[in-house]
């Protein structure tokens, strides 16, 4: 069962990823990315990361993607020109992408897995274990991310405000 679930989710994720790249309209790219995120959330569940699964659906597939949809609705459908100004760009990027995939494949062959630590799988990945990590050992990075979010919010408000000289 787990293997079947993994392969269905993986195939959906790859198809969604292809859809992100080849869709002509941005809205279809966004919807394909939602498919990728939902498939990845299923895989997170397989990897016993329940809390990350919930955050993936609520924050990513919910909030971030709705933000993208709002911006597309605001800007209207954008046309995509066939080619860029740089000649051979698609040819070169195809070459780069194939080389990158080959490099990652080669890296994967050489991965040396360490022995897993002793952990209780019924506890691993639960909200309790995540909270224990976030509020004890990693309290300082956790607080830093709240500062990062505040900075991003202020920056977004500053950038998208109506300017006086526009009026």
């Amino acid at each position, binding site marked *: 069962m*787990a*293997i079947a679930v993994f392969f269905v989710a993986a195939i959906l994720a790859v198809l969604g990823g292809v859809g992100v790249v080849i869709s002509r309209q941005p809205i279809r*790219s966004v919807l394909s990315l939602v498919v990728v995120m939902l498939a990845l959330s299923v895989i997170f569940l397989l990897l016993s990361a329940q809390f990350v699964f919930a955050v993936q659906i609520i924050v990513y597939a919910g909030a971030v993607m709705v933000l*993208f949809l709002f911006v597309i609705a605001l800007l209207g459908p954008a046309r995509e020109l066939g080619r860029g100004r740089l000649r051979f760009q698609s040819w070169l990027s195809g070459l780069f992408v194939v080389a990158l995939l080959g490099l*990652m494949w080669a890296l*994967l062959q050489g991965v040396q897995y360490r022995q897993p630590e002793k952990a209780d799988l019924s506890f691993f990945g639960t909200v309790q274990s*995540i909270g224990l990590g976030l509020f004890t050992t990693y309290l300082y990075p956790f607080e830093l991310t709240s500062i990062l979010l505040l900075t991003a919010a202020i920056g977004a408000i500053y950038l998208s405000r109506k300017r006086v000289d526009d009026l």
Partner: protein
Amino acid sequence: MSTLNIGGEQLDASWFLLLSAVLFVLGAAGVLVRRNPLVILISIELMLNAANLALVAFSRQLLNIEGQLFALMSMTVAAAEAVVGLAILVDIFRARDVEDIDDLSELRG
């Protein structure tokens, strides 16, 4: 090779890493090939998601919660990146119609 026992079945950890690599490369292809700034942002999100998958897979393989914590941090950074990137895009689009990311290259020295 390292197998993970999931629900009584053996899944190889490298399958998850391979899926992560494929998704990352698809995102990189989107950044390189597409011309629309919005789609480039979407492709960056795809790459961040692929990196998250690798983090969570290694976290499960080592049975160490730190990978999942870092995946949560990276989701926060991705959300902040999307918000600021979209705000910049809206600001640019308000000034003029951009169909190609190369139209925004006049700051180049």
